[in-house]
């Protein structure tokens, strides 16, 4: 019976070490070392210096710096406006993406280009651009210059591409069969959208929202000419940091900067988690 039960005759499989954790060769290891050195010198060490400088005075000093009325007002304005803009983007982003992917009409390629302009346009120019339509000489008669809506408008402009560009490729790959299947099963267009399409777009929308929130919170350039940087009125966090730097109060600047860095880090962790969830879904 030696040939009979081959599966049973086999010796118990000995546990082996799992696949090696590193597949680097000597030259790729060297390349990684060089790249990491540059990345550390350019990004990691400087950012660490911000946190270290902020912590030098201890927690008390840090807390009193970031809670001075003027700073707290700036942080509140920045975060709340970025949040509001993100809400608008969560609605408008998928809508624009939908039009770009599913609709066909003359001039669509122009819209495609318009979406990317805020990303490529220098932020100082973006401020000037908005000022020309919504400033003192507004042909529309809408003047937001040096008022709070200016911050909202500037954030809206610079964050425009994020949700659109995250959602668009997902929408392109979305299987139309699935929608047709849902329709054939009796689902209305609204139901199909809510139950079938929206869940597939949700991770992309969330990722785009996280990026647009982070971008809003960290915005500086487009506000310089537009918002007037009035304390308690239109002064955002970045401007607060800059005036601390200009007054040679580096510790104060670092403390406020740390708040922004923490927000950036949270956003990156959120993005990483979203990517993992999407990857797990396959």
């Amino acid at each position, binding site marked *: 019976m030696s*040939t009979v039960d*081959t*599966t049973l005759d086999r010796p118990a499989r000995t546990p082996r*070490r799992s696949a090696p954790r590193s597949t680097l060769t000597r030259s790729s290891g060297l390349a990684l070392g060089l790249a990491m050195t540059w990345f550390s010198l350019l990004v990691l060490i400087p950012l660490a210096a911000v946190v270290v400088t902020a912590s030098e005075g201890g927690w008390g000093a840090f807390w009193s710096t970031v809670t001075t009325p003027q700073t707290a007002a700036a942080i509140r304005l920045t975060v709340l406006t970025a949040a509001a803009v993100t809400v608008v983007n969560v609605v408008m982003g998928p809508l624009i993406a939908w039009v770009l992917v599913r609709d066909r009409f003359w001039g669509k390629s122009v819209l495609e280009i318009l979406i990317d302009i805020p990303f490529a346009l220098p932020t100082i120019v973006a401020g000037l651009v908005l000022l020309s339509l919504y400033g003192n000489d507004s042909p529309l008669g809408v003047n937001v210059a040096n008022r709070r809506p200016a911050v909202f408008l500037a954030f809206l402009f610079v964050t425009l591409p994020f949700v659109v560009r995250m959602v668009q490729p997902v929408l392109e790959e979305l299987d139309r069969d699935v929608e047709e299947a849902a329709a054939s099963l009796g689902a209305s267009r609204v139901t199909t959208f809510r139950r079938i399409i929206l869940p597939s777009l949700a991770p992309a929308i969330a990722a785009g929202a996280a990026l647009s929130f982070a971008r809003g919170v960290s915005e500086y350039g487009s506000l310089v000419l537009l918002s007037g940087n009035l304390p308690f009125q239109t002064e955002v966090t970045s401007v607060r940091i800059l005036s601390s730097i200009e007054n040679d109060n580096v510790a104060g600047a670092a403390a406020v900067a740390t708040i922004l860095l923490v927000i950036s880090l949270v956003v990156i962790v959120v993005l990483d988690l979203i990517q993992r969830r999407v990857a797990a879904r396959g």
Partner: protein
Amino acid sequence: MSIEVSGLNKTFGDFVALDDVNVSLPKGQLTALLGPSGGGKSTLLRIIAGLEKADSGSVTIEGVDATDLPAQKRNVGFVFQHYAVFKHMTVAKNVAFGLEIRKRPKDEIERRVAELLELVHLSQFAHRLPSQLSGGQRQRMALARALAVEPSVLLLDEPFGALDAKVRKELRDWLRRLHDDVHVTTVFVTHDQEEALEVADEIVVVDQGRVEQVGTPDQLYDEPANDFVMSFLGDVTHLGGLTLRPHDIELDATPRLAGGVEGTIARLVRIGFEVRVTVHTVDGDEVSVVVTRAHARSLGLAEGRTVWLTPAAGAAVVPRMVLAG
């Protein structure tokens, strides 16, 4: 021996891809690595090529220990299932690649490329991009590219797997003829037993990371080492304690031979010249038997009739596998 593989182990995480594999492949032969997908045959081929590293064990190619040699030093030709054509190069440039890397003189490269394109019938496509070729043509180009460097062994990983049935059959015949001309030691991976039986001089059956049997197509078909090999190479059925082929069972309308098993015909299906009979035996087995149409008619077979089954003389049989649990 052209390729000697010994004590090869390979795991991916918890998955055991190869489990103590030993194989020797003689020079100049066309060998098939046959087995179900996920059985480890592609991993074995890739380790021979140096595209994958084994956890332990050794690989010797033409007497040279190649275990720690990188792929580019093994002088092995490799053909991928999805062709791996260099998309940005013309057909001629693709074929010339290995020779250019070896810094051969220009005129020699030109001559050799022309020869090879002639060999794979792609001369008129020399200056096209691979995207302008069909799947079969791309794979022939990939083959020419691999042959250009005069490899000591030629390895093909499911070379026809991505092609449709008709082209696959043509290329299969063509590979056999090519091998008869070129005589380079060739190993190809396939999960198609018909392909292996038709083309190969020798077949290595691999399943669950182990070599189940090595032999010529005839040996494998007539003397399968075990139930797995037997069932992988063709249809099988079970009669009594035996596993055997449906056409190797004699079916009689009367208890003619001693040891015949009695049963009732449950179903009759006629397909072309053959008739497939399903018999429920008194032992409780469901047995498939294939007979010719003439034979079925002469016996007057019909559903519900009682028949007697016996293994034919000279039938390939193996004892039935005892299922675990």
